[in-house]
């Protein structure tokens, strides 16, 4: 137990690591509860989750949930961050005080590979042996005592989803942890061991490294490819020549250097696992086999996937409607209270029509966000998400994306905001960025009122071949246009600015399990807080600015339309009119476009204001608005303001134009906050397989970055400059 009298310099730093799908996040949530925050690692789209573990004596430790990794040889930006954090290198100034490696008891050998690497680094380690209940059901029993003796580090069996074993883990994390486990128990081939020993001695002398560090650096250098050594700038030519000579010696002995080390380590891990586990074999097809056969079938797999997506999509639309109405009604009530309580004037107008209206606009999205993450949590926790990515990989592969991109894109039909936030499930930095950039091209629900208004007013209510309504076909065409443009843009991005080859599929499919409600609820809460904090601060400010522009300068004794025309927004409409005139738009549409920067459907209410309609949301108001728009004529030329062609141009504009400010604000966070750094990170060259070249200690990461002009080109589209001030992503 912790000694209360011991001086506390800073909270203990505990890093959670482990293979993907080992249950790290569940353990993290169990240790920290709601005392956590989510941000991004600087300059990249990788999430940083940090929380506080409260000890019994009231003190705290800091717990960081690192991205999942299979080994200490990273092949992606996420893994590099995890490895750098564990080893205290790169942008991380210090190692964690303790590493907790979460191990899936169902795939012990594969998980122990990483454990053995961490032990070899002599970092204080605790093994959290998770999902022991699932393992038992599948006929595997792991002896934690035996593992503990073999590894030389504490091993705590857990069922993190139910909280079992967490209190014991907390006790161990409060106690002093042994510095090292039983390091280097595995035996590498003798020739490699010899070369490693000699190179290690040279490194100790030349670079003043201690024995353990020199050994690991020597091992990494010996197992590096020659192409990586070409880029090394930290070693002297003499040392480089020595390394190359060792490579040649080993190759002369017909040794695959990388394979030899991995195989040797795995052989030891397998022996250890055999001693520590008892398995009851399952002959024939298991339930999981049958489920996988159906859910990944070339036809039924796609049908089931589309069915699940249709249910999810429809639920987000329909289930969110009632809470959204309650939220809107709640804010309407607040607005009414403000009208009653405050005297007429600018303050009341600012509060009701500026601040409250802006906040209401954001909070109204909340039910959709939470529902989306409820479904995503269920799909991910149950193990189905990985199967869905496997099934959709072929379609996504045609535009150079991974199968995991499909779900965020589909979610964007409801709203781009939750779709963009869902892109965090995509491992690859570039694929994640491409998905975020193209998601807003899919027509969201906010555009539907605009489409409905214009189609109803300007597209004839006829049928084609007596079967299909032309109006319905137009609506379908708009959605199809968005989808085609999104996929096309993704293809272009993957071939040019965010170039990388089609990622090869290599995905772990976790065991099927009952989703953990606690874990899902915590995830929903975390996302809700993050969404409200990030988007709300920016949108609140923007709403106040827009209110000011549409309200000043004041014009007394005038109709709403005249006041609007006289305002800064009205003048802005006249100012942009020459730019939009070639599209057939005038100043009235210009104001509508400016207003719809906040929310797309604001275009409808702006048009209503312009045409003196009291409430354009009412049915008779909407019909009147349509009639007004159809009969509106230019006072100078006498020509119709709105024609069918104008309406089609306007609808296509809304399909393709820059997304609303809410989306820009949310894009800014997952894309790395500071757009320039995010793009520089995305520009790190990736080899085929969408993997970055292994980052070896002593060689430094490959130098990369986009040309400045390209960064400038893309910055407005991810909101870095549009919001004026790029800041590093922070909670």
């Amino acid at each position, binding site marked *: 137990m912790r000694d209360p009298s011991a001086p506390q310099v800073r909270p203990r730093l505990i890093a959670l690591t482990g293979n993907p799908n080992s249950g790290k996040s569940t353990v993290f949530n169990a240790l920290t509860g709601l005392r956590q925050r989510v941000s991004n690692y600087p300059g990249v789209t990788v999430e940083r989750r940090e929380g506080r573990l409260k000890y019994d004596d009231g003190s705290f430790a800091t717990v960081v949930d690192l991205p999942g990794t299979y080994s200490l040889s990273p092949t992606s930006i996420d893994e590099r961050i995890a490895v750098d954090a564990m080893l205290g290198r790169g942008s991380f100034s210090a190692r964690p005080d303790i590493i907790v490696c979460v191990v899936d008891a169902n*795939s012990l050998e594969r998980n122990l*590979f990483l454990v053995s690497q961490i032990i070899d680094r002599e970092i204080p380690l605790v093994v959290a042996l998770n999902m022991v209940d699932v393992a038992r059901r599948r006929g595997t029993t792991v002896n934690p005592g035996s593992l503990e003796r073999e590894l030389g580090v504490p091993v705590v069996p857990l069922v993190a989803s139910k909280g079992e074993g967490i209190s014991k883990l907390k006790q161990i994390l409060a106690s002093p942890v042994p510095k090292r486990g039983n390091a280097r128990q595995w035996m590498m081939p003798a020739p490699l061991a010899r070369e490693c020993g000699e190179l290690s001695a040279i490194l100790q002398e030349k670079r003043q490294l201690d024995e353990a560090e020199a050994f690991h650096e020597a091992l990494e250098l010996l197992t590096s490819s020659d192409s990586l050594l070409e880029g090394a700038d930290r070693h002297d030519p003499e040392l480089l020549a020595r390394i190359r000579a060792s490579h040649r010696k080993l190759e002369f002995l017909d040794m695959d250097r990388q394979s030899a080390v991995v195989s040797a380590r795995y052989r030891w891990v397998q022996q250890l696992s055999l001693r520590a586990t008892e398995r009851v074999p399952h002959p024939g097809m298991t339930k999981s086999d049958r489920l*996988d056969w159906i859910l990944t079938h070339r036809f039924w797999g796609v049908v089931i996937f589309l069915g699940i997506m249709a249910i999810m999509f429809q639920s987000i639309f329909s289930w969110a409607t009632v809470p959204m109405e309650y939220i809107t009604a709640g804010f309407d009530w607040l607005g009414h209270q403000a009208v009653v309580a405050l005297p007429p004037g600018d303050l009341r107008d600012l509060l009701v029509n500026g601040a409250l209206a802006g906040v209401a606009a954001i909070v109204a999205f909340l039910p959709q966000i939470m529902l989306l993450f409820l479904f995503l949590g269920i799909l991910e926790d149950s193990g189905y998400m990985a199967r869905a990515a496997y099934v959709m990989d072929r379609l996504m592969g045609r535009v150079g994306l991974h199968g995991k991109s499909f779900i965020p894109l589909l979610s964007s039909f409801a709203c781009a905001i939750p779709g963009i936030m869902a892109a965090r499930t995509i491992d690859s930095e570039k694929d994640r960025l491409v998905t975020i950039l193209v998601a807003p091209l899919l027509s969201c629900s906010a555009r539907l009122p605009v489409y409905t208004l214009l189609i109803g007013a300007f597209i004839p209510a006829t049928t084609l071949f007596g079967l299909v309504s032309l109006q319905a076909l137009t609506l379908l065409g708009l959605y199809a246009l968005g989808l085609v443009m999104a996929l096309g843009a993704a293809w272009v991005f993957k071939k040019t600015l965010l170039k990388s080859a089609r990622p090869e599929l290599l995905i772990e499919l976790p065991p099927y399990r009952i989703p953990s409600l606690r874990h899902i609820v915590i995830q929903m809460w975390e996302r809700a807080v993050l969404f409200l904090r990030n988007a709300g601060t920016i949108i609140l400010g923007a709403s106040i600015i827009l209110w000011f522009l549409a309200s000043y300068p004041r014009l007394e004794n005038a109709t709403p339309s005249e006041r609007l025309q006289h305002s800064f927004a009205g003048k802005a409409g006249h100012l942009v009119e020459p730019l939009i005139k070639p599209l057939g738009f005038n100043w009235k549409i210009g104001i509508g476009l400016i207003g719809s920067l906040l929310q797309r459907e604001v275009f409808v209410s702006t048009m209503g204001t312009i045409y003196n309609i009291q409430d354009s949301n009412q049915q008779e108001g909407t019909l009147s608005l349509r009639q007004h728009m159809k009969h509106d004529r230019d006072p100078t030329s006498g020509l119709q303001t709105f024609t069918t062609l104008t309406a089609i141009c306007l609808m296509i504009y809304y399909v393709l134009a820059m997304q609303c400010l809410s989306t820009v604000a949310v894009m800014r966070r997952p894309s790395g906050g500071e757009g320039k750094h995010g793009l520089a990170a995305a520009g790190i060259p990736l080899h085929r*397989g969408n993997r970055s070249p292994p980052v070896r200690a002593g060689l430094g990461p490959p130098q990369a970055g986009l040309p400045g002009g390209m960064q400038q080109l893309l910055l407005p589209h991810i909101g870095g400059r549009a919001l004026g001030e790029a800041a590093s992503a922070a909670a």
Partner: protein
Amino acid sequence: MPSYPFIRLSDTPAGSSVRIRHVHSRPEISTRLREMGFYEDVIVRCITRTHGNLICEILNTRIGIDGDLANGIIVSPAEQ
């Protein structure tokens, strides 16, 4: 199972178990494959295939693998 000793993992029938003999790919890919358990002498059970991609079980873990990657993994019947 075919009678010749070595075949590619991509040609392995669903439901059969094979032993990996060699992993051939670009260095960073083969390293990653080995770290995920696709190393020499390990037993792989093929579960199902879709559009050339394959789901297999290795070291008690289920993995979806690209047909191109599976092409580079040479295997033989598990009992050999």
